[in-house]
C-alpha cells in the first residue's frame, strides 16, 4: 500500500467558528498540493472513517469548546487515546469526529498516526463569520500541519517555517 497522508477539515461553514476546520483545509489545499489528500467534511463519522481508513497518517482540524480562550490551538495525538470528552459534543451531528476515531480504533481501521488539531471557537451562531482569533488560528494550524507533513517526508528539506 502506498503511503498516503490525508488532511480533513471538519465543520460547518454556515455556523461561525464551526467552519474553522474547513477554512484551514482550504489553506492547506494550496500549501500541500501533491503531498497530501485534503478534504472538507461536515463531521459525520462514517464519512470521516471512509477517508482515513486507507491512509498512513491523518490530520484532522475541527472547532472545539474546551473552556479555553478563543483561538487556542489544541494538538491531540488521537492514536494514543480517545479525544477529550467534550470534543464529542461538537460535531454538527451526534455521530461525529470522536466517534469516527473510536470506531476506527475498534475496527482496527485507524492509521498509525492520527493528529487532531482543535481550534477553540467562540461563536457558533448560524451565519456568523469566523471570530478574529479563530481566523488567525487557522493560519497557525495550517502552518503547523504543513511543517509536520514536510517532516514526515524524509526527502523534503527541513521545515523552515517558524512553529507557533
Amino acid at each position, binding site marked *: 500500500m502506498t503511503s498516503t497522508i490525508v488532511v480533513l477539515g471538519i465543520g460547518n461553514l454556515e455556523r461561525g467558528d464551526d467552519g474553522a476546520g474547513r477554512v484551514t483545509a482550504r489553506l492547506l489545499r494550496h500549501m500541500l498540493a501533491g503531498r497530501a489528500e485534503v478534504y472538507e*467534511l461536515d463531521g459525520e463519522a*462514517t464519512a470521516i472513517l*471512509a477517508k482515513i481508513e486507507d491512509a498512513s497518517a491523518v490530520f484532522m482540524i475541527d472547532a472545539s469548546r474546551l473552556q479555553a480562550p478563543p483561538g487556542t490551538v489544541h494538538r491531540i495525538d488521537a492514536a494514543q487515546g480517545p479525544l477529550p470528552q467534550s470534543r464529542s459534543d461538537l460535531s454538527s*451531528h451526534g455521530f461525529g469526529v470522536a466517534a469516527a476515531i473510536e*470506531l476506527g480504533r475498534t475496527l482496527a481501521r485507524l492509521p498509525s498516526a492520527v493528529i487532531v488539531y482543535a481550534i477553540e471557537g467562540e461563536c457558533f451562531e448560524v451565519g456568523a463569520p469566523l471570530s478574529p482569533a479563530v481566523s488567525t488560528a487557522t493560519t497557525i494550524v495550517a502552518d503547523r500541519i504543513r511543517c509536520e507533513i514536510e517532516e514526515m517526508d524524509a526527502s523534503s528539506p527541513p521545515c523552515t517555517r517558524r512553529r507557533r
Partner: protein
Amino acid sequence: MTRKTIKLDYLARVEGEGAFKVVVRDGTVKSAELRIFEPPRFFEAFLRGRSCLEVPDITARICGICPIAYQMGSVHAIEKILGIKVGGPLRELRRLIYCGEWIESHVLHIYMLHAPDFLGYDSAIHMAKDHGDIVKKGLELKKIGNEIMTILGGREIHPINVRVGGFYRVPARRELAPLADKLKWARDAAIDTVRLVSTFDFPDNQRDYEFVALRHPDEYPLNEGRLVSNKGMDIPIEDYDDTIEEVHVEHSTALHSHIRARGAYFTGPLARYSLNFDRLTPTAQQVAREAGLGETCNNPFKSIVVRAVEVVYACEEALRIVQAYEPPDRPFIDGPMRAGSGCHATEAPRGICYHRYTIDDSGSVTFARIAAPTSQNQPTIEKDLTSFVGDWLDLPDKELQHRCEQAIRNYDPCISCSAHFLRLDVDRGQG
C-alpha cells in the same frame, strides 16, 4: 411537589438538537413535548432576492445528510414555474442520485444510530467491539451511496452539480458502469441487512396513524406523485397548503404540521412503505414478507426493518438506472425566465419535503417556504410518546429515558446543523 429530572449530557444518536419533556401525574402521561430548532426557516429568508437558479445550491446547505432532498424539491418547484419538463435520462439521473442519498442516510441510521438500541449497546462503537463484521458491512454499504452522490453531485457534501433543468454536467456511461458490480453487492448486503434487523426484539407498540406519502402510477415514489394517505387524502401537490397547515407551538421554534381539521400525520419510510408496497420491486417485496412485515406496518419500532427494505429497493433501482443509462444530448433543459409561483414535494429519506416559491419576472425569489419531514413528524412523535410512555412507567428512569430516545429515533429525526444537546425531563410529580 418535586420534579424528577433526567438529563443526557450530549445528543445520543439523533441528528441535531432537541429537548424532550414528559409530565406524569397519578400514573398517567399528561403531556409530552419535543422541542427542536428548524434551520430551514433561516434559509427561507436567505433565498429571498436570490436568483431562482441559485436556489438548489443554497438549499443543499440545509442538511449535510439529505441535501438531495432539498435540491430536488427546489428544482422541481422552480421548473414548474418556468414550464420546464425534465424527462428521459435526466429524470433517471435524478432518481439515481436520490437513491444514493437514501442508501447513505438509511444505512447510517440502521447500522450506526438505531441498531445499537436493539442489540443493547450505548453506541455503534460499543456494538462494533462485539459485532465488528456487522458494522463493517454497514460501512461498506454506505460507501456505495457516497459514491453515487459524489459522481452525480460533484462532491460528497453539499453537492453542486444539480441545477434547474437537470445537471451542470452529466456522467459518461463509463463513469457509471463501475457502479453496477458494486450495486449488485450492495443489493445482497441490503437483503442481509433486512434479515439481520428483522431478528431484533421489537416493543409491541403501535398506533392507528394517518400515513402520508407520495404515490406514483408506476414507481416507488422519489421525486413525483400525488400526496395520498390511508385515510382518504389523494391530492396533487398544488393542494398541499389547502390540506396541511403549519402552526406555531410555544415549546418549539419549529412549526408543527397538521392535516387541517384532522390533526397529526406520519411521513417517512413507514408511510411510504404502507402506501406503496405494490410499487416495490419483487425482490424488496419478497424480503419484506420473509422479514415478517405485512403490506402495511404500524409499529414505528419496526421502521428499522422498513428502512432496510427501502435500501434493497434503492440498490435495485440504482442498478436498473446504471445498466440502462445512455447520456442525454444536453445536461440540462433551459427555459425563459418568467414570474410565477410553484410548489413541489419529494420523498426525502425521512419523508415528505415540501417546497413553495414565488419568483418575479427577472427570476428573483420573492417568497420561499420549505416544510422539512422532521417538523411534519413532530406532533406524531409527541403523540407516540404520550401514548407509549404509559406502558413504560414501571421502568427505572434510565431505562425509561432510553426507551423514549429509541421511540424518537424511530423517526430518524434530522434536526440538522443545530447545537448538540438532548435533554430529557421526566416530571413524575412525586412529592
